[in-house]
């Protein structure tokens, strides 16, 4: 009752002052449009990781010392032969020098054949001899190249700085989060563009190829791919417009919901920019979603207006009545969308939180634009008789429609209903069984955000193939006492830990200060492998470590912190799980006083933390989103039965979506986890629209069958159109350059379409049993 009176007051107030209200909308739109033009594409490394996860605390704590995971690798390759020619060395030197001067690069750590720290050491009768691999007086003639070649062989850099087959050489650098000269945050996307322009374009010619990998480059490529979204947006708008036109046969009525939805998108972007947020490549899809949701609610509105006009009302009356009729179900539906998105805030990963804010803001805007602005605009519109006539004409084929509605109405009778429910149960159980195989994490090699065929992933494959390095590594950080590396028992524990991990399937190789110091110890003993052991003698042990600088990333300044770096075969979820499990076991078994084995740093350490955060967030997120939906249904319908008939189909569809993920090899990741919440939040709309009509009729004494038939006649076509519109909006993502957008597109399309089907098939079948007395009495 109170809700009704509020609706009344709102209606009277808004429509009496409609000109003023419209003016307010226009002013706001102008301001927010200006703000929206200022919005920036924004990506940073820390946003992608769960900062409060214990692994990431370790990672952040030691990032200063060990550079963390933000590195860039550039492999310069000679297509037609080996590296020993003047042309190649010129290109390599060019790349090295160029990279050195790009802002954001930590210049001390630029490493290639040309860096003075790349040295060779050889053992001679009276000790060591050595020097830089490329001598100061280097000339790229036959003699000079021969010297470099023999130095490379002595230096042990084949596989890291020079490729195994001598056709490529590497330039490595680590990046700084802030530029020390300006104090500004590193602009990853700009940095990536500079790499592309000043390094790749400049030096990739005459048979020389340049391959670039690293987080910064990946983000740049993702951002580039994300720009393609503008095209998809245009396509989605066009297709949606055609759909809406087929539905209402009026150009004006087509333009209105689309324009209002665009206003919602503008407001959303404007507000984001005003609040200081940027658009992340991952949340760049949200405007689509907002647009699609806006259109789908707009369609409900013009559907209602159109029907009222045909029945003889003026456009103002029709608009007022539609506003009153749709404010509650539409408001509830949009509110549950908003709440559904807000539940994502509970996940402690910056990028998902941002997505939650972006999406819930956008949907909240739709409440204003499509439930208020749209009817106000409609009220000004002169809806021609021809429209009415068309609607009437439309009603004659609609007789067929109606016969379809009659067929569908039988779903609400117990006979067909029990068959539907039986089939649904079977599907649900199958879905439940198969969704047990749902994998958490990335299931494919390479950068998961990008397609396998993308330049970035091809470069990754080339580099991991040609060099003995892997981008899939994880560091276990050993925290211990100062000068720990001078104690045999501590180094021995690290060494034993490393060996144990090397024996785990999925670990390809490992390196630590302990393993390197053993090799150095052999070096001090004429290179005799029989001395490749940790010396019990403290002076000898110190000697074997003294030559290893902290820039090696194997120790900090007082060697109280030493990582064991594990190179993995890949970053698939199973591999990571198995390795993490063994690390935990091993660190318990090897527990000593003063030594802690801390997880984890390196790219795979980040993935492990993200996987764990995603896995932990899954259940609470589902509970919150369903809790919110149930609560809102209970409030709006004030009926447990109605709530059950809305929520059960939703849950079945969520389960089926998980099954689909296992079939399509899509893992539960930072980008697919939100899809479940989005799918549920939006999927509930259909049920709410249908049931709001149904429960009104049921309250008036209709049977379930009658109530459902009336609901179909009133809202059926709009619900179908809504489902299709939403699905179209997201299905354009199938063609995205970004793999995660494709995954999100597939899942959302599935969720939207199947939720719609469930709302018109499973919901009435459930209702048939939940309101049993009314179900069969008349039939």
């Amino acid at each position, binding site marked *: 009752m109170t809700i009704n009176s509020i609706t009344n007051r709102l209606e009277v107030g808004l429509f009496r002052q409609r000109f003023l209200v419209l003016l307010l909308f226009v002013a706001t739109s102008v301001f927010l449009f200006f703000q929206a033009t200022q919005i920036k594409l924004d990506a940073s490394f820390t946003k992608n990781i769960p900062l409060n996860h214990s692994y990431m605390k370790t990672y952040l704590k030691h990032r200063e010392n060990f550079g963390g995971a933000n590195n860039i690798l550039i492999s310069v390759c000679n297509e037609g032969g080996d590296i020993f020619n003047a042309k190649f060395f010129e290109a390599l030197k060019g790349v090295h020098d160029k990279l050195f001067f790009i802002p954001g690069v930590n210049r001390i750590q630029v490493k290639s054949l040309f860096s003075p720290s790349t040295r060779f050491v050889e053992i*001679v009768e009276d000790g060591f001899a050595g020097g830089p691999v490329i001598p100061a007086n280097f000339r790229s003639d036959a003699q000079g190249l021969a010297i470099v070649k023999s130095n490379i062989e002595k230096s042990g850099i084949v596989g890291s700085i020079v490729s195994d087959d001598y056709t490529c050489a590497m330039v490595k650098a680590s990046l700084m989060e802030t530029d020390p000269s300006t104090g500004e945050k590193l602009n990853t996307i700009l940095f990536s563009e500079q790499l592309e322009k000043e390094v790749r374009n400049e030096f990739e010619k005459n048979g020389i190829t340049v391959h670039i990998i690293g987080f910064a480059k990946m983000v740049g490529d993702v951002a580039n791919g994300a720009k393609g979204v503008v095209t998809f947006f245009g396509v989605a708008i066009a297709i949606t417009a055609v759909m809406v036109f087929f539905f209402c046969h009026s150009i004006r009525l087509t333009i209105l919901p689309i324009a209002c939805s665009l206003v919602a998108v503008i407001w959303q972007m404007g507000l984001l920019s005003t609040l200081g947020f940027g658009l992340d490549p991952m949340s760049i899809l949200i405007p689509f979603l907002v647009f699609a949701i806006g259109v789908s609610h707009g369609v409900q509105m013009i559907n209602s207006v159109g029907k009222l006009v045909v029945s003889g009302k003026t456009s103002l009356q029709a608009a007022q009545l539609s506003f009153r009729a749709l404010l509650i179900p539409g408001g509830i539906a949009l509110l549950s969308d908003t709440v559904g998105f807000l539940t994502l805030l509970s996940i402690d990963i910056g990028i998902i939180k941002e997505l939650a804010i972006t999406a819930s803001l956008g949907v909240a805007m739709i409440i204003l634009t499509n439930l208020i602005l749209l009817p106000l605009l409609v009220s000004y519109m002169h809806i021609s008789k021809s429209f009415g006539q068309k609607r009437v004409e439309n009603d004659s084929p609609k007789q067929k429609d109606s016969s379809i509605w009659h067929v569908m109405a039988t779903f609400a009778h117990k006979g067909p209903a029990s068959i539907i429910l039986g089939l649904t149960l079977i599907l649900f159980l199958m879905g439940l069984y198969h969704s047990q195989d749902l994998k958490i994490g990335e299931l494919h090699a390479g950068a998961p955000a990008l397609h396998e065929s993308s330049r970035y992933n091809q470069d990754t494959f080339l580099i991991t193939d040609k060099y003995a390095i892997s981008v899939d590594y994880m560091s276990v950080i050993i925290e211990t006492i100062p000068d720990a590396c001078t104690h045999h028992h501590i180094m021995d524990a690290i060494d034993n830990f490393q060996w144990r991990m090397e024996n785990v399937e999925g670990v390809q190789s490992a390196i630590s200060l302990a393993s390197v110091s053993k090799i150095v110890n052999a070096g001090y003993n004429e290179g005799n*492998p029989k001395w490749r052991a940790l010396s019990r003698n403290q002076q000898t042990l110190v000697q074997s470590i003294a030559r290893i600088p902290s820039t090696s990333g194997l120790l900090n300044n007082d060697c109280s912190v030493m990582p064991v770096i594990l190179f993995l075969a890949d970053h698939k979820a199973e591999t990571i799980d198995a390795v993490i499990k063994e690390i935990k076991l091993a660190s318990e078994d090897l527990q000593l006083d003063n030594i802690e084995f801390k997880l984890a740093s390196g790219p795979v350490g980040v993935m492990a933390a993200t996987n764990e955060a995603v896995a932990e967030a899954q259940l609470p997120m589902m509970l919150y989103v369903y809790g919110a939906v149930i609560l809102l249904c209970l409030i709006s319908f004030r009926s447990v039965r109605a709530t059950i008939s809305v929520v059960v189909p939703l849950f079945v569809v969520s389960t089926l979506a998980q099954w689909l993920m296992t079939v399509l090899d899509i893992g539960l990741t930072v980008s697919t986890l939100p899809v479940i919440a989005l799918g549920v939040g939006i999927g509930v709309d259909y049920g709410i629209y249908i049931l709001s009509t149904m429960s009104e009729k049921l309250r008036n004494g209709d049977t379930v069958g009658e109530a459902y038939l009336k609901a179909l006649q009133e809202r059926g076509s709009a619900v179908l159109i809504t489902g299709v519109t939403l699905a179209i909006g997201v299905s354009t993502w199938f063609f995205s350059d970004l793999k995660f957008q494709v995954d999100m597109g597939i899942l959302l399309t599935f969720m939207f379409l199947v939720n719609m089907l469930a709302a018109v098939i499973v919901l009435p079948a459930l209702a048939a049993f939940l309101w049993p007395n009314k179900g069969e009495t008349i039939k």
Partner: protein
Amino acid sequence: MMKRSIAFVLLYLTNQCVMAINTPLPSVIAPLASKSLLLDIVNIEQQKLVAVGERGHILLSLDAVNWQQMQVPVQATLTGVYFVDTMKGWAVGHDATIINTLDGGKTWHIQQFKPELEKPLLDVVFKNDMEGLAVGAYGQFFRTEDGGNTWHSEFHHEFLLPEDVEYLEELKNEDEEAYLDEQSSILPHFNRIVLDGRTLYLVGEIGLIAKSNDFGKHWQKLAEIYQGSFFDLIRTQKGNLIVVGLRGNAFRSLKNGTPWQRSATNTTALLNSLVLSDDDRIFILGNNGVVLESTDDGLTYNQHIQEDGKPLVAGVWFDNKIIAVSDVGIKAITLTLPGHN
């Protein structure tokens, strides 16, 4: 009272520490043991191969393809292994470890474990199942005459340089402790000990080649031919001697001992080990994947550099192949005789 209890605690802690060092830990069976750093290998009467290496790894194989890791009571890096027959064998290594087996390598027992010496043993040899010698870094020299139940350290003055003899004499009179300390590190490393009939050869640091006709009781240094270290010595099928060492140095002596002639090897890699084939070829295994082959009894060598460049530490001839050990474990190297296919 307080002080006493603190002292007691300290004493207790020190004891704990000493205990920790002196208690050997058993080796761990690991899937990758046959791919770990292995340092010596023996061929027992063409029936069985035994390889030893880091972390107390001992591996047995009957076919050089399938290797089985044995449980060993130490985790010390093992550097040398020797069998007198198919059953009785010894292995030595870091922490002055000596272990033995009586059942062909299946079970092993500790005979000596002295981590406090902080020195590795590098080779072991037995004349029969009772009399044996273990040698190692800084002139370590242990002898047993009861099959290894007891080992006694010997200091061989004959390996001292003349000026060191004087220096030690002086020190002995002045400072007993410094004398003992100096004595324990003044001798060169003994890298390899080779029994050739009744003659025993010892090679090591600073160009050391020595021979003994009474199983190591008295030694006679051979004339100095090279400043660097030697790592292996062998009598060829034709009865000549070959010695190899640092930076690609290989020498050949036609009659016992003299005169040595340098062979061209065209490599500067450290040469670790000599292997004789049963078709009169001689192989030298070295660091950086170096395999040198001689078909003329060590006069000239062909290079067969292994692509992975891994150090080849030791090897045996088995089943027409070289079975070598390296820092990535067992490696089978097939080199067919030129002219044969």
